[in-house]
């Protein structure tokens, strides 16, 4: 193993072991997220690694031996190796609210992990963990009405996705792939109410919304001709029966009979080489959330849409050029329209009106590849804002720094 490759291996191990969730517990506590995760399904997560995040997340037409996208199962069809990739996402946020001032915070997330291997039949098999939505939040609230108390709420969970992917090249220009995606995770909140009067015992409640862990299909394809590629994905819908449980000391109340429907959706996009070293990528992704997806007085839904664009200056392959020329440069932009429609500022339910959450982010990134191309580190920096202080009472600006590590069996050769 070369020293550089050893460094990649060390980096991957260090990040995954020392990271907030670790390899075996990616559904851990630490996740980057949004203040709007307090309600609805939580922040929609972008699963892509740093390379595609720098391109605004436009990866549906992505393909290659070591380049792939989480959005399109066909994108792994050209993988030649055993490949492992993970991403860590430190995030910094600045919040500004009408009644509760301003706050700054930072979190770290693991939005995705993936391992893939090429099978002898020309098929490529992959397993992935992805964060679908992130419902992580902590709230401290002073209750002064009635018996004075301090309420702490810790929200955890969200939609987690576990995927098994299979892909194959149908012809030199056509790649096909399929995902079987299990919707896992749950929404869990721990409420504790401490009273100023020590004669009163702390009230602790657990609220959990869980669902049957059913799966759905995602079917993707890509077509390439020359330096132009197009890709598309279709996702099927899946209805998940809900179980809503409230626990406190000595009692449990359970409600069943409701359901959450993960809607159908599609993604389409392209990658077009402009010159030998420049290419343009674009993507549109839609999930057809609507009022029927989940019956609730506290959240309504619209279709989730993500528009992504990016430009990449590829690395120079000539060994005689300078260091900077050997670095790829990626810039991108994305507009995400959250599916959640939350009660407007001042309303306690959607009956009082709803406000949407739109998220705009700009990104830039680069990456390094080991000399044997067995490993890579990609970096991206995203800055953006989401939500409206006028409509929702709080707005949010954020900066995210993604680090993706990729190692393949070449790394150990």
């Amino acid at each position, binding site marked *: 193993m070369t*020293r*550089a490759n050893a*460094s*990649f291996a060390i980096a991957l191990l*260090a*990040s995954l072991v*020392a990271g*907030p969730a670790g390899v075996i517990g990616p559904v851990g506590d*630490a996740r980057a997220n949004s*203040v*709007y995760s*307090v*309600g609805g399904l939580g922040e929609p997560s972008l699963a892509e690694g740093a390379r595609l995040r720098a391109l605004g997340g436009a990866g549906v037409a992505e393909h290659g031996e070591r380049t792939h996208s989480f959005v399109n199962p066909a994108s792994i069809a050209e993988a030649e190796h055993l490949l492992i990739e993970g991403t*860590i996402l*430190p995030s910094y*946020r600045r919040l*500004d*609210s009408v009644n*509760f001032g301003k*706050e*700054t*915070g*930072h979190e*770290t997330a693991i939005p995705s992990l993936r391992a893939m291997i090429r099978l002898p039949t020309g098929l490529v098999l992959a397993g992935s963990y992805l964060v679908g939505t992130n419902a*992580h*939040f*902590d*709230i401290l*609230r002073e209750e002064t009405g*009635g*018996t004075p108390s301090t309420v702490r709420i810790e929200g955890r969970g969200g939609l987690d996705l576990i995927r098994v992917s299979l892909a194959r090249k149908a012809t030199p220009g056509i790649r096909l792939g399929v995902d079987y995606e299990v919707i896992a995770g749950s*929404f869990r*909140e721990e*409420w504790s*109410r401490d009273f100023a009067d020590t004669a*009163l015992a702390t*009230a602790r*409640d657990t*609220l959990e*919304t869980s669902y049957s862990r059913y799966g759905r299909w995602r079917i993707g394809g890509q077509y390439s001709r020359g330096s132009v590629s197009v890709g598309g994905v279709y996702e099927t819908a899946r209805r998940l029966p809900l179980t*809503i449980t*409230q626990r*406190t*000391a*000595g*009692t449990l*109340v359970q409600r069943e009979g409701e359901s959450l429907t993960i809607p159908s959706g599609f993604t389409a996009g392209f990658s077009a080489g402009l010159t030998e070293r420049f290419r343009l990528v674009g993507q549109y992704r839609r999930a057809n959330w609507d009022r029927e997806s*989940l019956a609730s*007085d*506290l959240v309504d839904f619209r279709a989730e849409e993500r528009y992504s664009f990016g430009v990449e200056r590829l690395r120079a392959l000539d060994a005689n050029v300078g*260091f900077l020329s050997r670095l790829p440069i990626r810039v991108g932009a994305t507009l995400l329209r959250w599916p959640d429609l*939350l009660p407007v500022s001042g309303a*306690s*339910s959607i009956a009082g009106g709803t406000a949407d959450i739109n998220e705009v982010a700009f990104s830039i990134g680069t990456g*390094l590849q*080991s000399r044997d191309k067995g490993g890579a580190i990609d970096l991206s920096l995203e800055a953006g804002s989401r939500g409206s202080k006028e409509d*929702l*009472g*709080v707005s949010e600006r954020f900066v995210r720094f993604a*680090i993706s590590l990729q190692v393949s069996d070449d790394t150990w050769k």
Partner: protein
Amino acid sequence: MPRTRILTLVLALALAAVAPACSKKAERLVGNEVLKRGPGGLGDTVREIRPLDRDTFLGTGTADRGSTLLAGVSGAYEARVLIKPGTWVLPDTNDVTVVVDSIRLELPFDGKMSIPDVDLLLHTAASAWDTLSVAWPGPGLGASLATANAVDANGDLWLELGGSSFGLVKSWAIDPSSLNGFVVRRSAGSGVAAFRAGAGRFRIVYHTATSTRSIADTPFSADLFIHTPLVSLPTGADTTLILGGLYAPVVAFRAPVDSFTPGFSLDEARVVFRVRSDSPTFPDSITVTIEARRIQSSWSEGAVDTAGLNISTVTLDRVVGYQVRDVSDTLLVVPLPASLVRDWSSGVLANDGVVLRINESFRAPEIWLYSRESTRPPEFRISTTSPPPGRF
């Protein structure tokens, strides 16, 4: 080292450093702005102080089969020890050289109460009695066999029958039905002596031609004590509740519990009694443990004793180390288990109330509590919080 390699190592270290640096404080306060959970709020805490709807004190019978035996007199209170010997153990009656030196009843003091200056007298019981049903005044008194002063005892209390009683003992051994047991009662002086139950014995000390001192011990097959009943029986409308003391009365009460919202939190459930200003105070070294037990049958304030209350053998809660030192504003706070209050609220268990009792209450003075008919009635303090609203 090439720059790419240096950069890789720097990034690896930076990544390891950044990864654990997770915090989640950004919306601790600001998140309240979007914490919308319906018009019902986030759950209400309601504190209530309610009166008891039933309370009284109750006698516990006049026989005590516990680990202590009492004998003596204190005011109107009198206690007697009842004993049934086991199979008599005698010296070898075929040995003509046996000389009985002493026959005595030995009762070891329990060591936890002071020994009073009281004369105790040993009688045979004049009539048959049953350990399970005997009650004050117990069997009649037969022949007086021995007497001794408790405070003069050196070690255990010895009630000496004398060696000449050996023939009588032999007749009891030959025909056990001729003996109805024994009674130890006070004959003079004042005070109550306490002995360890199950530790007493009849001891025959003798010598033979071949031994200078031999012993034959006969343990008891049963021992207990009986005492006079409560001087003034409860009426149900008394303004004072008497708990503990020599008569060992218990306090029974019922705290009304409503039906609450399913999933509620119980933050407080306790009954607060006030100690009467004229209640006896405890010596410094004396504390008691007050136990709460569930009453499992319905009862009325007209009851005079615990018979028929079907009191659970399981202790719900304990007030440990309690003593009445300063009677001004002394409280007795009895916490009720949340699980019990929940079961009462949901109707899983019938709410027939709780009884307070003191184990070996004779070691401490009585505790006089104000009742619900008094000017300072007990309070049932209950606080509940309705469940928080759901996420969706």
